[in-house]
Every structure is written in C-alpha cells, then in structure tokens.
C-alpha cells in the first residue's frame, strides 16, 4: 500500500492542474459507525461540470461519502466547503438547495405511476392538499426531456419500461425543480448492456455541456476508463488519491482499488485427450437458439459469450433441464440423456449457478448453513428420515470453510448479511455439495467487485484443476478471455465462432459479438 501511496500519480486535492477552484470540496472527513471507522480523513473535491468517478471495493466508504454529501449523515470531523463557504455538515434540504441530486442504485421510481408523474412528482410533494395539475406536470417533464435531447413515452407506466429507460426517467427527475449542479449516480451501469452504457454516456456528456457535474460510483474498470475524467479511489475508508484517468491504465486502476497486483495471463489451450464430459449436438429450441454443438471436457473451462438475448442463458437453462430443447442430443459422459427437469439434470451431476443469484440462487433471510445443504438434504438423512446433524455439519464445514473460504465466523448468519462476493461463494458451495461433474456458471460476477471477482475465479480454477467441466457464461469480454481455455461466441441463437484465447484479441471478440 505504501508503494501505491507514494506513487507519482498521487495528486493533491484542492488545487487541480488547471488551477480551477472546486465548487464542492470535502476536507478531512471522518465518520465512524459504532466501532467501525467508515471514513478516515478523506478529502475529495468536485469541479464544476466534471465527470468524476468514485471507485473502490464494497465497504470502502463510497456510500458513506455520498450520504455525507447528500446530508443523510453528518461527518464526525471535517468540513464541507460549498463555493468557498465551509459547513460542518449539510442537511438533505441544504444539499438539494445547493443543487446536489442523488440517483440511488434502485432508482427510487414509482412503478405504478406514469413517466410524467414520476419526473414531476415534486409537484405533488410541495403542496399536498391541492388539485394536481397533470398538464403542468407533463409540460415540466417535456421541458427536461428536451433539455437532455431525449424522448420518453410520458404516459407509460414506469414499471413497464426497461431498466435503461427507467434510468433516464430518474435522471430527468433529478433535473426538475431546483437547479441541479451535481448529479451523483450510484452504480448506474450495473444492469445495463453495452449500448445502453453508451447512451448513458451521451447523456452525461450532455449534462457536462450544460455545466452539470456528474459523480458516479462504479467498480467496472472498463467504464471508469471510458466515462470518467478523474477518478478518486477509496480503500478501507481512506482516500488513496484523485487521478486523471488519462494517466492511468486498467491494470493500474485495478491495483489501486484492491491493493493487489493482478497478473492477467491467458490460459494455455486445453490439450486433453480425455473423452468429453458434456457433448451437445444439433441442439435447437424454436425462437431461442438453433443447431448448437459443443464439447466440454473434464478440467476444461469453456467460455460462452454473447449479448443479452443472444440465447446464452436459454441454452444454459436447457443444459440444466429447465428449458427442454425441441431437437438435438445431449450426452453426459458418453451416454445420451433427456433433461426434461432440473431434478434430472442434478441426477446427471450437472450444477447451475444462476445469473440472478439473489432471486434464484439463495434464500436470503436463511442462514449460510441452510442454504448450503438445501440441495443435498436427501443425502444427509439418517435411518428415520431425519437430518443427520453430524453429516450436515461436516458438509458445511468442508465447503463453506475449507474449500471456498467464505468470510464469516459462523455458518449460522443469514446470507443477506454477506457481501456479494461471499454470497456468490455460498451459491457455489451449495452446488459443489451436490458433487457435480459439470458446472454451469451464468454471469457469476455480476454485481461483485473486482477483488471478490478475483477470489471467485481462483476457486473456479481450482475446481477445474480437480477435474470439473466448467461452462462459463458471461457478457464481459475480458472475463471470458482471461478465464477460459476456449471461447465460443453466441449471436442470435447460434454459435458463430470458436476461439483460442491466446490467438484472439479483446477487440476481435467484441467485433464478433456485436457484429
């Protein structure tokens, strides 16, 4: 860490290279919650109309810093200087009056109300007991949309819109009313596709043209590199410094955020002569995918990459028996199988870790232990059909603590208290406890920060080394490129190419995927 702090790229906050004074400055901010020091002497400044990224792993203090800026929390120490005037803390109202608008990750929209009503909802709040004026609200919404040069269906219910459009609604709402000067977006790109990220980027540049600064929180390195002008990196509650993005590269930024040096090395092509564990030929399901052939050997990590809607998830669900194909054959260990239900797939020792681990993979309020053994309960029963406590404990100890090193002192904590990366490990434990031969990982790192990501892939590598056949599905090119022995690209329901990671570049892959 000292090495990083003394780096030549460290830039003093307060004075920027162009000598411009920041319009918001936070100086020496400290905040503790009980015994936890969330922020330690953090200084942070935002200049007018800049695009600034706040980066750091989960729990590094990003959200606390934003909440201090928005007036939700008062700092224990330090000052917030707004246009030269120092404040010991801000109230939510004062923060908004100054023009700070926060767009939370959940967007905080009303799914049951129209776009216009969502954008102009402030109209209802100002004076509650009065006739609502739908015309004025529509006009207000129309005006903001024109300012952003976008067009949204004003009468549509927000709940019917795709996430990307909802995000635009949230941005429009932030611009209504009090003159916004800074828009803070908490992980705005977490659930967007690449094209949608580009559209969001265009909006952010439009805001910049109108003199509005944007601070966005992200841990997707690619995005920080393409969107931000400056980046402030927090780690363990401390500010490691503010950097010009043009002076950094991806690896360097990854190092700053995690404190680890990542060597991203490409895997050697898998040259096993063993028989495939999973063979698929001519697999077709009307309207989803067609004529898919693939082979997966024990110990191999096969990357499957494609856009959302390319058919990748549908194919994965078919291999797990949850989406029976219309025609084609699946062989497991040389024997043809008919996977009509997921119970059948589990019997064939196929495991599937879903894309949406929160809703499909885990029962959030239940304990780590219960989540781990839920898939193998029938194997843990004793003579009377009751659960054998000792064998249960053994299973949990083996997977949670010895194999996957979930960071917890007890397996009796509810899963929802764990970080995203640790939750993902619990999902993996649950499936590994079934002793699979084939493991399908569908976008295993969505919403997981970069440090935890590295941890998960370490586990995946170990599992492959022990002879598991792994199908890794993702829409992040670098992830598949550095993590697989072989890469299949899927587009519009078809496999359009097979690539050797050592003989293809990220750029080439992108072109095939988005062609």
């Amino acid at each position, binding site marked *: 860490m000292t090495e990083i702090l003394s780096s030549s790229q460290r830039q003093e906050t307060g004075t920027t290279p162009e000598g411009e004074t920041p319009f918001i400055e936070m100086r020496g901010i400290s905040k503790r919650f009980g015994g936890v020091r969330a922020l330690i002497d953090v200084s942070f400044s935002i200049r007018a109309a800049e695009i600034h990224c706040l980066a750091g792993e989960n729990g590094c203090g990003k959200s606390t810093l934003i909440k201090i800026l928005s007036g939700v929390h008062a700092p224990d120490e330090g000052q917030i200087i707004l246009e030269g005037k120092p404040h010991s803390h801000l109230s939510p109202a004062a923060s908004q009056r100054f023009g700070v608008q926060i767009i939370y990750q959940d967007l905080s929209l009303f799914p049951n109300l129209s776009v216009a009503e969502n954008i102009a909802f402030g109209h209802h*709040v100002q004076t509650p007991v009065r006739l609502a004026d739908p015309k004025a609200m529509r006009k207000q919404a129309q005006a903001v949309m024109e300012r952003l040069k976008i067009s949204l269906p004003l009468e*549509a*219910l927000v709940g019917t819109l795709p996430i990307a459009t909802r995000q635009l609604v949230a941005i429009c709402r932030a611009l209504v009313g009090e003159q916004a000067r800074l828009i803070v977006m908490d992980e705005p790109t977490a659930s967007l596709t690449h094209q949608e990220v580009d559209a969001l980027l265009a909006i952010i540049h439009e805001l910049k043209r109108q003199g509005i600064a944007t601070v966005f929180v992200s841990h997707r390195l690619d995005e920080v590199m393409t969107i931000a002008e400056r980046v402030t990196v927090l780690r363990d509650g401390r500010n490691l410094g503010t950097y010009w993005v043009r002076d950094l590269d991806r690896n360097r930024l990854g190092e700053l955020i995690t404190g680890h040096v990542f060597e991203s090395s490409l895997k050697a092509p898998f040259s096993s002569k063993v028989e495939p564990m999973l063979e698929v030929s001519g697999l077709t399901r009307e309207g989803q995918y067609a004529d898919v052939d693939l082979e997966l050997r024990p110990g191999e990590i096969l990357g499957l990459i494609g856009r959302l809607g390319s058919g990748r998830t549908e194919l994965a669900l078919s291999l797990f028996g949850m989406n029976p194909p219309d025609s084609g054959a699946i062989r497991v260990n040389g024997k043809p199988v008919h996977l009509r239900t997921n119970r059948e797939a589990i019997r064939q020792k196929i495991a599937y870790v879903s894309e949406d681990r929160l809703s499909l993979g885990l029962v959030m309020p239940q304990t780590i232990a219960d989540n781990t053994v839920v898939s193998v309960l029938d194997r843990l029963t004793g003579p009377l059909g009751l659960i054998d406590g000792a064998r249960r404990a053994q299973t949990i100890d083996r997977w949670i603590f010895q194999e996957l090193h979930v960071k917890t002192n007890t397996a009796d904590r509810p899963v929802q208290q764990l970080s995203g990366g640790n939750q993902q490990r619990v999902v993996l434990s649950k499936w590994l406890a079934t002793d699979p031969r084939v493991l399908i990982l569908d976008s295993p790192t969505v919403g997981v920060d970069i440090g935890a990501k590295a941890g998960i892939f370490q586990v995946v590598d170990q599992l492959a080394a022990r002879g598991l056949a792994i199908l890794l599905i993702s829409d992040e090119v670098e992830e598949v490129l550095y993590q697989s022995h072989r890469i299949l690209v899927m587009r519009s329901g078809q496999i359009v190419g097979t690539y050797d990671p050592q003989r293809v570049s990220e750029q080439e892959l992108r072109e095939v995927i988005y062609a």
Partner: protein
Amino acid sequence: MPDQHSSYKAVFHRHDVQLLGIIVVMAVIFSALSKSFLSPSNLVSLLENYSVMAIMAAGLLVVLISGGIDISFAAIAAVSQYVMATVLVRFGGNWLVAFGLSAGFGILLGIVNALLIYYLRALSVIVTISMMTFYFAILMFVTDGKSLYNLPDWFTDDLSLFGIPFPVVVAAIVLLVTLFLLSRLSIGRQIYGLGGNPEAAKRMGCNLLGLQCFVYGYSGFMAGIAGLVQAHRVEEVVPNALIGRELDVLAAVVLGGASLLGGIGTVSGMVLGIVLLAILQNGLTLLGVSSYSFGFVTGLVILMSVSATAYAAKHQQKQRVRHAN
C-alpha cells in the same frame, strides 16, 4: 414499444371490462330465472343494502393503495356508532352532532392505528387485527353487549333526496369524494406513490407519518360514516352487528382490482367489485339457494377473478421478456 404500454394499460381497463361483462351475464341469468330480480323495489333495496359496504370499502381502498391494510374498520364502525347512539339517546342532538361524533370517533381510532403502525414499525395487518379485537372487546365489555333500540325518531325516520334513499346518497357522495381524492388531489397521488415504492416516497420528501395518519384516518372516517348510516337504516345499534363484515369488504375491493401489495386500485373497479358481489348474493337469495352456499359461490368467484388477474400479469411479463430478447 408504445403498443406494449397501451397493452399494459389495457390490463387495468380489461379488468373493469371483464367485471362488467360478468355482471351483465349474471344479471341476464338471474332476471331470466327470477322475475323479481329486475323489479325496481329489488334494485332499490339492493342499492340500499350495499351502500354501507361501499362506504367502508372506500376507506379500505385508500389504505390498500397506500400499501397497507386495515382489518379494524368494522370494529371502528361499531364503536363510533355506539358512542354516537349513546349520546343521542341520553342527551338528544341533531344530524350535525351525530355526524361529528361518529366520524370524529372513527378518525380518532384510525389515527391510533396509524401511529401504532408508524412507531412500532409493525405490519399493518397485525396491528389492525389486534386493534380490531381490542376495540371490539372494549365495546362489549363497556356495553355488556346491550343493544340500543330507542334511537330518536328524527334519526331513524326515512330520509331521501329526489326519491333516492339516504344511505345511497351518502354512499354516492363518499365514492365521488374518494374518486376526487385519489385521482385529482396531490395527496391522493402521493398515496399511490407511497404504495408503489415507499422508499422512493420517503426520498422524494413525502411526509410518511402524515400520509399514514391521513390514510388510516380516512379509513376510520369512512367507518364512522358507515356506522351512522347503518344505525339509521336498521333503526337500532347492536354492538356486534357489523363484526364479520371485514372480509366481505376486503373481498369486494380485491375483486375490483386493488392489489394487496399496494399502489394499484381504482374507485370504478371497487364499485364493480361490490356490484358483482351484490348481484351474486341477491340473485342466489331470490332463487332460494341456501345462505350457506353464499360463501361457497362468493369464494369461488373471488378465486377465479384473482387468478385471472394473476394469469394476465404473468402472460404480460412473458411477452415482455420475449420482446426484450
């Protein structure tokens, strides 16, 4: 994309249209089977019979839209009604006093609900079930379960406006006021917002405590008025007369398309829900069907309606997914 929205909106419309269709079919069947079904006297007494239910339903609808639920309104109606009747019997009074007492007591008890829900951060269903038991037990304890029969004549005499009976007039006014509140007043729109996404409502600066008090107070207010109208209609106050109506009213409101998850519901749908239940129960009575099978048929209709709505929503979602891909 635009066609997608209109089709989503159509689900709400479709629900009303579906209900209307079922109502028409039922009415045709019952009028064919029983001559007295479409007779003016039957229709008028039908309207009168269900006006108390409609008044209570209006209060419940507002609570449901806000994302809560109120099970205690029938108990509140019984308490307010009893307080009002006791004062009228002992000290006399006039319509203003009667109205003020009944509605005022209803609002008061409703706000007690709101405060408990807000400060205990408890589920509204638990709080209002407890309060229902509590209010009713107190009423029975204090009154010994005695009924009041000697209500003043001015109170029990038949009243009407242009030939429309008093209960129907009150129900009509209540429905119009609720319609206006929910669709035109800003506070009504805030209630929809609160039901749709409470966290967002908080972040937008809505006064949550105020809204809760308003919503449960409104439900209590409606309960008070319902108590008054019911006492006027049956010319007596029996402490346990209104108890047990909660689920009927809830069923009618849900049948009318209101969501138990909050944020969704309309006055028009609610009215259709009540009309459907009313026609069904009245028709079966006229056909001489035993009152025990009421529950059977009512339960079945509600189940079918709710599953139709759920099926439509699921179908819609599937289409959206397909669309997105």
